[in-house]
């Protein structure tokens, strides 16, 4: 009796495993969409990404994987060599590699597809009026590939006739916009340059910290960091993804998600918006299509 019972159990279990394997085998393997996220975002304080993941997955019918890295350089490298399908890039990285990247959408913030670089100082410092008042001071940058957090302030100084490498007493990178604001608030740095979008959001969500800083100067407008696809992203999926992103503001859940990050909607990309981004000086004429060999 015992032997028969054991045998029966084994058969049943085996059948179950087999059916399961077969069922799995018959499912078509769908590759997840890998989405790179950069410090352009206040990712740490936001369950936004979890909700957005569900939103995208339900409409794309494929799993979505958000990939976070510390630096813009890593994300753009991964995007360029196909490790990432799409990414939310900083404007500078897009400008540099725009001939190889496929723009998908540009967010609209307060009705505009633009953002600016804010020069901020400590709220207790009332003497500083502009960059020229910051000689021999400590300056906080975001990271070497940040448009508003590195490129723009240095270009501004150059236009004012100063050498950005020797103007300040010392500089350092905080590797996130929020931390530049924290550095200035804690007075580790006398001044810093941040993304206007981040500063405005923080002014509302962490008013205590933002109130310790003061915006001294606002730069000209630059194109808002776009969502782009890598060179190896299949063209067939491009249209679907772009349509989905552009129409996010049309349904209620999409609007709710956009409100979480204080964006109006995701709109079409116009390369003209990114033309004024200061790129490294090159002998070649066409600024909009530099080659990576220039770096």
């Amino acid at each position, binding site marked *: 009796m015992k032997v028969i019972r054991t045998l029966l159990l084994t058969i049943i279990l085996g059948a179950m495993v087999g059916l399961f394997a077969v069922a799995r085998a018959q499912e078509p393997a769908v590759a997840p969409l890998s989405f790179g996220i950069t410090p352009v975002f206040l990712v740490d304080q936001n369950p936004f990404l979890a909700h957005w993941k569900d939103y995208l997955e339900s409409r794309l019918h494929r799993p979505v994987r958000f990939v976070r890295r510390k630096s813009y350089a890593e994300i753009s490298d991964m995007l360029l060599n196909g490790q990432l399908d799409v990414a939310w890039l900083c404007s500078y990285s897009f400008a540099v590699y725009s001939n190889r990247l496929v723009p998908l959408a540009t967010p609209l913030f307060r009705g505009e597809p633009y953002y600016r670089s804010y020069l901020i100082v400590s709220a207790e410092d009332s003497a500083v009026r502009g960059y020229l008042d910051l000689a021999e001071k*400590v300056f*906080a940058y975001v990271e070497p590939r940040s448009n508003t957090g590195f490129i723009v302030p240095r270009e501004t100084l150059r236009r004012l006739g100063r050498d950005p490498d020797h103007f300040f*007493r*010392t500089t*350092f*990178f*905080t*590797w996130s916009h929020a*931390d530049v604001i924290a*550095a200035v608030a*804690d*007075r*580790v*740095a006398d001044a810093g340059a941040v993304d206007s979008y981040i500063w405005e959001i923080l002014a509302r969500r962490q008013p205590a910290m933002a109130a310790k800083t003061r915006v001294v100067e606002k730069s000209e407008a630059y194109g808002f960091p776009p969502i782009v696809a890598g060179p190896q992203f299949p063209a067939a999926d491009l249209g679907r993804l772009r349509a989905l992103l552009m129409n996010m503001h049309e349904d209620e859940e999409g609007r709710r998600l956009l409100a979480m990050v204080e964006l109006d909607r995701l709109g079409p990309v116009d390369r003209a918006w990114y033309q004024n981004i200061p790129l490294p000086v090159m002998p070649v004429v066409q600024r909009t299509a530099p080659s990576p060999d220039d770096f």
Partner: protein
Amino acid sequence: MLPLSFRFRVPLFLSLVALTTGICIAVIVLWHDHRATREESAHDSAQITQLLARAVTADLATEDVWNAFQTLRSVVNGVGWVKPEFALVLNESGQVWVSSDPVRFPLLTPPDGLGEDRRALLSRDWSLEGETVSLSRSPMDYYLTRIHMGDVHRGVLLLGFDSRRLYPRYYRSAARVLAVTGVILLVCLPLGWRWGGHLAEPLIELENCVTQLGEPGACVLKDPPRPKRHPSELSRLRQRVRLVAAELHEKRSLERQMIRSERQAALGRLAAGVAHEINNPLGGMLTAIATFRHHGHDPAVAEKTISLLERGLQQIRHTVSVLLVEVRAEPRALTPLDLEDVVELVGPSVRSRQLHLAANLQLPERMGLPAGPLRQVLLNLLLNAIYASPPGGALELGAFMKDGRLDMWVANEGESISDAVMERLFEPFTESRWGGAGLGLWISDQTLRQLQGSLRAAREGERTVFRISVPCADLSPS
């Protein structure tokens, strides 16, 4: 020292002992806690410094100021009581590379924020790996360590601890210890007080008892409910005192008995004398009566006979009345008449031995002294003197008041009393040469002592003199 009763002294002493012990232990515990806390704190601070140095080494190498700042900040804001006031990293040129307090120590400036301690700290030799610096006049404890990559000196990590950071912990500790000590004392002190009282009780009871020993109605120590198998010293003491009290009580009643019997013996002796005194006139009276029978019808003889009878009977009555007074022994005040009575009483004995008694009595009417005991004493001394005198000897009796005291003396000639006998003269059962019980002088001495008086015997020239001195109660001149 205050003359405090045992009732307070014993509990007080016990309470003091408890208090002193409590305080000593509290002090020791606090001191030990203080030491341990200091050591622990120093150890922890040194460890933190070492760990922090390792954490910021990589940042220093990659010039990641922000990361180092966040690390320093998290340590300074850390939990627990081992929190530095500030932490800073100095680069090779001695400037601040990063600090937890950028307002006090701005980047790439000399660490002027250290104030007066700066010179003392920075003049040190950086070859030492980790070092604790405690500057004498500064409230700060500093911990320094080198930061190096390989053998290259890259910088110095400096942590400043406020040495007063431990005070709240000390106070909490002290409060806890004192609270516990207080609670323990609160329990022990009343207990000690009670136990002390409990100890003192039997001693006080014993003391009261001993003081009253021998007096009528003296305390009776209670017997213990069960006899103890191993009685303490106190129990044995109580036992002894009880025995002594019983013995003393017995002795006193024996004394009283002896005084009574001696008195009766004295009375007996008296009776012999009195019988003789009564007998004297009786012979004459009977002879007169016989004469009357013979010459009965002669009125002159009848008159003579009757007056002789009358005189004789009066004399007998007088003698008997004196004796009656003695026998009755009513409590009555002494008067000069009492002394005259006594002289009268011993008259027969004096005459029968052919002695000569000279009485010199100068006493006021009122003396405030009891008649009975003093009559007995005087009688006893006179009888002694009479029997000690050689035949034909001279006896002397004197009595007078002086300075509120009654002084009396009885002197007799004859053999002097030897020194050995003199020593034990007033003791009971001494040898008496005239066959008495040997109690007379002892009883007289006791009687006089009870009246706060004294009895002395002395040899004056050829005579033996016994002197009595008794203070009078009534000194008001009448």
